[in-house]
């Protein structure tokens, strides 16, 4: 018998007639048929069904058939809020059922329904039966009662907290049946997560009891228990190690949530034992193998596991020692979101010994069909050269990039040029040989970032490139007015460099560009930088050389990029396997109402390296400062702008934005060189950090997350 014929839109009036026709104890079949139609209409959001409320209440009162009841209850739960005064009619039959001696299933069903209805009368009346059923003889009923307490608490905290339900729930933690214990824990965790003043803490006895029965209950109970064990704080390193040993077998469970719950617990406990790996040496192999296993599951779980690998590799890489980079090589038909995440892991796991294999693999991806994957692979190749400092690794990366440039596919070439720019900056004097080849691809560049990179290269090596002035003139300056600001900034710097390196060639260009930059723009950064160069060149051309094109450029470093704030990592560690671990963002940024979590202090807690935090803070502050090149406000009249036309005060002052986070302005002139030096190199280094989004951090708006995986914290761009 199929339900298909019931799955159609119906009119409430007709259904009512049918309901009334089905009255009487013998018409069970007819009743069910009508009820099915009603349930179907409820599903289709046909709100007309609300008018049938009275008839349904009648049916709850009169019928004894379980199927009929179940459907009526579903109706009741769905619409009770719309008709609270009528809903109370169902209270007595529910209370009767909850007191049934007949069957534990009936009692449980009644209690389940009773506690699902968010109406005050139901909660008030529900307290007594719940108290009784919490100590029912049947564990199934006790289990249901545990969750009922949490349900009622979520509807109305006051009533529940005034009764002693929560205290009783606490008592059930000592229940003889593991499933009941797990449900009590789940209920308590649910309550404490949302409550501001309640906190769940387990002592050593409880924790050890839970660990003992862990193997004896269903997978879902194990998940709750593993989560609950985080509420236990070990007091000695030995306690922590013992616990790790006891839960280690869980890593081989077939349920991914059990596995990740165990990983979470082990990572948590690793904070409480300095020498965990010496005492339990099999952890890295087991943990790595568990993660690799998850990567052969369904794509959704793979994604979750991959994101968590990123997390653990950043917070406690020693726990995943021996994880082979090969495990993360992409399969041809992996979904895109998996491929891009795998790329990040390949980047993280690459080192001097596997660089050859890794580069060969990345080269393969870089010629794939999906543009996003291609770009990310090329970027990864470039970043590897910066990450691994050995001579061979950088050389191999550059060779791979040059191989890719030869494909002449526009987006590959552009991405490669961006990567090469950073390599040239990182290793001055080693790879200049590639510049000539790069200059052959000028026509292919249509993306701002690639153009910016190329302009930087041309400016920096203006004296090595034969016709650098022609390249700037023909390929870039001719379109000055259409370029975005970042390219204009790069062009400005490049032109000045050209002028310094080859004064005769740049002579004509500089005044033109300075004029554009200062007079024909609305962008304050561009204008400021224009004036700065202008002033510099006109006041002391010889100093300008040291500042704009010094022999030694400050070296860029990439190690800091990927590292997240230790405090954020600490919180994320406690949320391994949760949604926050996918976004790799502080929980509060994704879930505003979530309770912040952190490690509970204990004598054996390993102190966090706070020095890291300070360093990071400093770095962030520096980045913040350099981002806003503070416009100094010297006395305009004292400026000697030589033959160049001096801008009028009226034009200048009103357009300067009030610095929001800038450094305090320094009025004295002698400090200028230093600052303008930092400005001259600033946009390159900042660009690099932007790529990694490391220093910019995790400040994503609520809407930003809406685009799903696109906005997760990425290492590679």
């Amino acid at each position, binding site marked *: 018998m*199929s*339900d298909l014929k019931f799955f159609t839109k119906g009119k409430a009036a007709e259904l009512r007639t049918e309901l009334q026709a089905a009255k009487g104890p013998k018409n069970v079949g007819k009743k069910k048929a009508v009820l099915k139609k009603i*349930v*179907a209409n409820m*599903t*289709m959001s046909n709100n007309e069904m609300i008018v049938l409320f009275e008839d349904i209440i009648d049916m709850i009162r009169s019928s004894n*058939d379980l199927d009929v009841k179940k*459907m009526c209850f*579903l109706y009741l739960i769905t619409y009770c809020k719309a008709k609270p005064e009528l809903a109370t009619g169902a209270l007595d039959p529910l209370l009767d059922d909850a007191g049934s001696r007949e*069957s534990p*299933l009936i009692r449980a069903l009644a209690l*389940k329904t009773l506690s*699902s209805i968010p109406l005050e009368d139901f909660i008030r009346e529900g307290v007594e039966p719940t108290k009784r059923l919490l100590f029912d003889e049947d564990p*199934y009923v006790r289990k249901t009662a545990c*969750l009922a307490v949490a349900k009622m608490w979520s509807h109305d905290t006051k009533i529940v907290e005034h009764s002693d339900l929560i205290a009783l729930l606490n008592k059930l933690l000592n229940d003889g049946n*593991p499933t009941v214990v797990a449900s009590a824990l789940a209920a308590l965790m*649910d309550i404490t997560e949302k409550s501001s003043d309640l906190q769940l803490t387990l002592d050593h006895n409880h924790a050890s009891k839970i660990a003992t029965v862990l*193997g*004896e209950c*269903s*997978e879902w109970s194990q*998940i709750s228990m593993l*989560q609950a064990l985080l509420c236990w704080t070990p007091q000695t390193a030995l306690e922590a190690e013992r616990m790790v040993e006891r839960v*280690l*077998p869980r890593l*081989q469970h*077939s*349920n*991914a949530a059990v596995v990740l719950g165990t990983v979470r617990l082990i990572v948590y406990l690793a904070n409480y034992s300095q020498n965990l790996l010496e005492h339990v040496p099999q952890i890295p192999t087991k943990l790595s*193998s*568990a993660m690799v*296993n998850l990567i052969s599951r*369904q794509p959704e*779980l793979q*994604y*979750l596991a991959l994101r968590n690998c990123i997390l653990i590799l950043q917070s406690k890489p020693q726990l995943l020692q021996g994880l082979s980079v*090969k495990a993360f*090589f992409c*399969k*041809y*038909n992996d*979904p895109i979101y998996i491929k891009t995440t795998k790329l990040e892991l390949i980047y993280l796991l690459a080192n001097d010994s596997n660089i050859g294999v890794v580069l060969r693999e990345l080269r393969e991806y870089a*010629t794939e069909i999906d543009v996003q994957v291609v770009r990310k692979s090329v970027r990864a190749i470039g970043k590897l050269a910066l990450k691994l400092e050995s001579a061979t690794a950088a050389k191999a990366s550059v060779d791979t990039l040059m191989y890719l440039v030869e494909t*002449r*596919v*526009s987006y590959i070439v552009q991405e490669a040029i961006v990567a090469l720019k950073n390599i040239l900056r990182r290793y001055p004097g080693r790879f200049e040989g590639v510049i000539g080849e790069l200059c052959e691809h000028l026509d292919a560049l249509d993306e701002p970032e690639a153009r910016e990179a190329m302009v930087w290269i041309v400016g920096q090596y203006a004296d090595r490139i034969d016709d650098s002035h022609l390249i700037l003139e023909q390929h870039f300056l001719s379109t000055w007015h259409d370029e975005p600001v970042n390219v204009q900034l790069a062009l400005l710097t490049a032109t000045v460099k050209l002028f310094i390196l080859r004064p005769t060639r740049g002579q004509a260009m500089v005044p033109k560009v300075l004029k554009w930059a200062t007079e024909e723009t609305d962008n304050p950064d561009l204008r400021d930088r224009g004036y700065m160069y202008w002033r510099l060149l006109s006041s002391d051309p010889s100093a300008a050389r040291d500042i704009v094109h010094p022999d030694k450029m400050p070296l860029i470093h990439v190690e800091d990029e990927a590292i997240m704030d230790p405090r954020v990592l600490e919180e994320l560690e406690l949320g391994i*396997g*949760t*949604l926050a*671990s*996918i976004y790799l963002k502080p929980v509060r940024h994704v*879930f505003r*109402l*979530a309770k912040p979590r952190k490690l509970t202090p204990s004598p054996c807690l390993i102190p966090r390296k706070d020095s890291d935090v300070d360093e990071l803070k400093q770095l962030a502050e520096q980045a913040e400062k350099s981002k806003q090149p503070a416009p100094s406000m010297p006395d305009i009249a004292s400026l000697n702008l030589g033959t160049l036309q001096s801008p009028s005060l009226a034009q200048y002052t009103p357009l300067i934005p009030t610095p929001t986070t800038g450094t305090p302005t320094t009025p004295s002139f002698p400090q200028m060189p230093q600052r303008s030096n930092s400005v001259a190199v600033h946009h390159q280094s900042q660009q690099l950090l932007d790529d990694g989004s490391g220093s910019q951090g995790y400040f994503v708006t*609520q809407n930003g*997350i*809406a685009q*799903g*995986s*696109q906005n997760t914290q990425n290492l590679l761009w």
Partner: protein
Amino acid sequence: MISAILLYNQKGEVLISRLYRDGLRRSIADVFRIQVISNPEVRSPILTIGSTSFMHCKSEDMYVVAVNRSNVDAGMVFEFLYKIVALGKSYFGSFNEQSVKENFTLVYELLDEMIDFGLPQNTEMDMLKQYIQTEAKRSGSESGSSAVSVSVPDALSRSKSMKALKRSKTITSQITGATPWRRDNVKHHRNEMFVDVVEKVNLLISPTGSVLVANVDGTIHMKSQLSGVPECTFGLNDTLRLDQEHDEDDPRSSKRGGRRGSTAPTGSVGLQDCVFHPCVKLNNFDHDRSINFVPPDGEFELMHYKCVENLSIPFKVVPSVQIVGKSRVEYDIVIKANFPKQQTATNVVINIPTPRNAAKTTINASNGKAKYDSSTNQIVWKVSRISGGSEISLRATAELTFTTEKTPWNKPPISMDFEITMITCSGLVVRYLKVFEKSNYNTVKWVRYLMKGGSYEIRF
């Protein structure tokens, strides 16, 4: 925790909607429809808007969606969604729009038992089937349909309700007991145990012929038809196992299985990354590598493993693909069967990719049938049987039309599918399977081995 479970059809119409937490309205369903179902650009199975997250997987033509309002355990949610799909398949044969519409009240009933307050409760097939049954089954069984109901005060139905009470008690004790996957009153006329070792071979060969990835995804499926509550012990020629119990077990297993060493190399294999069905006592395995379990009744997957060492790769593929100018691609592909002569590979399919602008192909295959499929841009070469040690080859030419597209051909790998029975790639052999039960009956055991192509790819 899960705030709501929704099922949609392909068009985005809601088929099932069940809310578990306050603070959600039914109209939440529209958000997912607009943001995911009708948005072709979505690439992630997880979408977070504000503080509300939608996590979904697909089952045939349906979206199975969980809505969450907190920082939920994502692994738990996905595992639960897969469970819904698996249970649906087991109940209705297939889990799609049609079958859900035909059984929507039953789906609601199942969900009610599977999840309470957004926390997964009880998802054991065997258990659920005892008291949530399909219409057809119900009408066939006892007259009062659900045994747990009605209390009419006459003698006959009182004894019936006593029975019902007893039955519902066994159900509840099973749900909350230590082996929720098995009831204790199973009876079978013949006690049999079927073991299927299925290995999927994953291979990735680089254009230069070096092996980039080679591993085996193995699963051991079982079908148990055993009475009572049997305790089983299962043994493989896994390295550690062998060292400990070599002497004791060898003669027995050869007597029992009779297949030991028939095809797979003798000796031991190193299994990695073992994952077990919840019925396996993990602590025992961790302690001494023994696999002990009380099996569920019927079919289940006992374990999953990986193997990377000492693999005997069944096929060697030597591709030679030459792009001649801009108008032609020439293929010369030789495949050598690298397994013993007694064995035969069946259902062999080789997919050879062609450029998108291929217009005409001429194909010459030594064995089987090869055809050009323009919709997928590949030559599909099917060979029904290949015996061990033999060699097959294919020569083909693809003529290309002129194209202005600049992007070069991205050369997807050649992929291959096949089946070979009674042989394992890893060399794994089942050594023994012991069954202990109070009544001490005899059990008939069957073992089968199957090797299949997983992601078997050759770059060129």
